[in-house]
């Protein structure tokens, strides 16, 4: 299969979509005038004073990492990036609480050193690898990917890591291995808010040919620094053409198997979250449309943009699914 880098992929933002700066300021002024009038309600001041817990500005970035030595990557999306302050405070990392502001408040309890990753299952030699040796195994590339959550919002994030295929090759899976499973840390001591009702540890997986695709990033950092805890430190995967929940965070074990692994959200609600979960605007989530997404970038209110098949990576990855009914294997 011919792999093309995303420099040739079409970008989703038309220049007409970008708000001219002047218009933006005009709008802001109009809004300010309106709000200034309405905001004189005496209750406003009272409310702000007595309801501080009801909003979560959560500008705290826990364990904002140390700078990483990176090399420029080949796969970069040329779209406005999501500010770090947003992508590190709006996270689904249920082990640290189910609200999206919870992980940035709670994940400071995660201990990322010492950290090891077990390599198990159908490999030539099962072994335990130390995080620092994994990180130094290959040069760390910086890659700017689109990130599409199954909840219909999206971001553009500069990740730092190297292709998962490099580590898989190092693990030497047996020919019988058809799937690779990622298991996340579960530890009540570090995760006091671990919610009940889920079959922990968090489990995700890919078909091995998917996992070998160079776009799948074994990720150690973002924005040039090691991952903040709430973003899945110290090691996670990023599969940019799939919904975000496919990207297991804080991985402690990589398991090779011949059977499709049980994955957390699929087990939880199989009609809502398929094993494949490729981004697909024509297959709606039972409870909402997947045709559009709210793009979270530097603008104050997210704009709604059309969702692209395979999150805009169809050129590179659609071939993995040729002949498959993607409505059935969603």
């Amino acid at each position, binding site marked *: 299969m011919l792999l093309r880098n995303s420099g040739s992929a079409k970008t989703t933002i038309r220049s007409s979509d970008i708000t001219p700066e002047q218009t933006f300021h005009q709008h802001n002024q109009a809004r300010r005038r309106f709000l200034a009038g309405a905001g004189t309600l005496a209750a406003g*001041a009272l409310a702000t004073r007595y309801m501080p817990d*009801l909003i979560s*500005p959560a500008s705290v970035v826990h364990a904002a990492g140390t700078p990483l030595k990176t090399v420029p990557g080949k796969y970069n999306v040329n779209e406005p990036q999501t500010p770090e302050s947003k992508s590190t405070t*709006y996270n689904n990392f249920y082990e640290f609480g189910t609200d999206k502001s919870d992980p940035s408040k709670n994940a400071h309890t995660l201990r990322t050193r010492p950290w090891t990753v077990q390599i198990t299952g159908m490999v030539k030699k099962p072994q335990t690898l130390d995080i620092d040796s994994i990180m130094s195994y290959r040069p760390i590339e910086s890659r700017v990917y689109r990130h599409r959550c199954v909840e219909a919002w999206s971001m553009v994030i500069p990740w730092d890591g190297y292709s998962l295929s490099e580590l898989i090759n190092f693990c030497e899976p047996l020919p019988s291995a058809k799937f690779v499973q990622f298991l996340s840390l579960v530890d009540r001591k570090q995760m006091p808010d671990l919610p009940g009702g889920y079959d922990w540890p968090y489990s995700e997986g890919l078909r091995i040919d998917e996992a070998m695709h160079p776009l799948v990033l074994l990720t150690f950092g973002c924005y040039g620094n090691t991952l903040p805890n709430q973003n899945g430190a110290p090691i996670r995967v990023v599969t940019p053409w799939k919904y975000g929940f496919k990207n297991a965070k804080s991985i402690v074990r990589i398991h090779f198997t011949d059977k499709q692994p049980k994955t957390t959200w699929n087990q939880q609600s199989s009609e809502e979250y398929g094993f494949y979960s490729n981004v697909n605007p024509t297959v709606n989530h039972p409870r909402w449309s997947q*045709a559009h997404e709210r793009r979270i970038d530097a603008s104050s*209110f997210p704009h*709604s943009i059309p969702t692209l098949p395979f999150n805009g990576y169809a050129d590179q990855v659609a071939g993995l699914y040729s002949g498959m009914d993607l409505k059935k294997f969603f």
Partner: protein
Amino acid sequence: MPKRAILAIKIFLHLGLLAPFAYLLQISRNGTLVQNADPVNYITHFTGDWALYILLASLAITPLRRLSPQIAFLIRFRRLIGLYAFFYASLHLATYIFLFSGYDLPTALIALKNGQPGELVTQAKFVWPTIWDDIRKRRFIQVGFASWVILLSLACTSPAFIMRAMGGKNWQRLHRLVYVAAIAAVVHFWWLVKSGVRTPWKVTAVLILLLGARLAYTALKARSKPTPKLATQ
């Protein structure tokens, strides 16, 4: 209860019930809201939560005032509280239509200011298929919308002259639908959260408590009713 005290309490209630809305305006103005990565999601949950809290507060009046004749005056605030529940439910619905659905409100407002009202329609045409699809297919939308329609009909019939025109019995029959609205609102909440998320349990517990109190009261009354008759005989 002296008139002045009632008035004072009413002013206090207005301020208190407007406080969440004022807070929302305040954080939009001072930039706190846009620090939130997904303000649309935030506003949606904020207005929905408060609609539900206030609706439950209005349902708490009756069981509370039954506790003692001394607090029977509470009934005089029920309509006010109920109307605020409708106010927040309407904000919630408007958030869904003009922000959540993909309607680009900021762009539409700028266009309107520049004398292009057509943009409002363009945006509506753009999101209409999504909204229609939601109404047809998604049960959490259906049940939430049904709850709002009930609250709308109760709000429309809340003025005293309409109540008189309808006759007390009819009016009461219609306004008992508030129970359906509250149950529908809580079901709406359960159906929208992800599997395994239990956030709605608190409001559910409160609703069960409030409905249970009514059932208990009715049962007690039914049992104690014959007693005075026997006594008078």
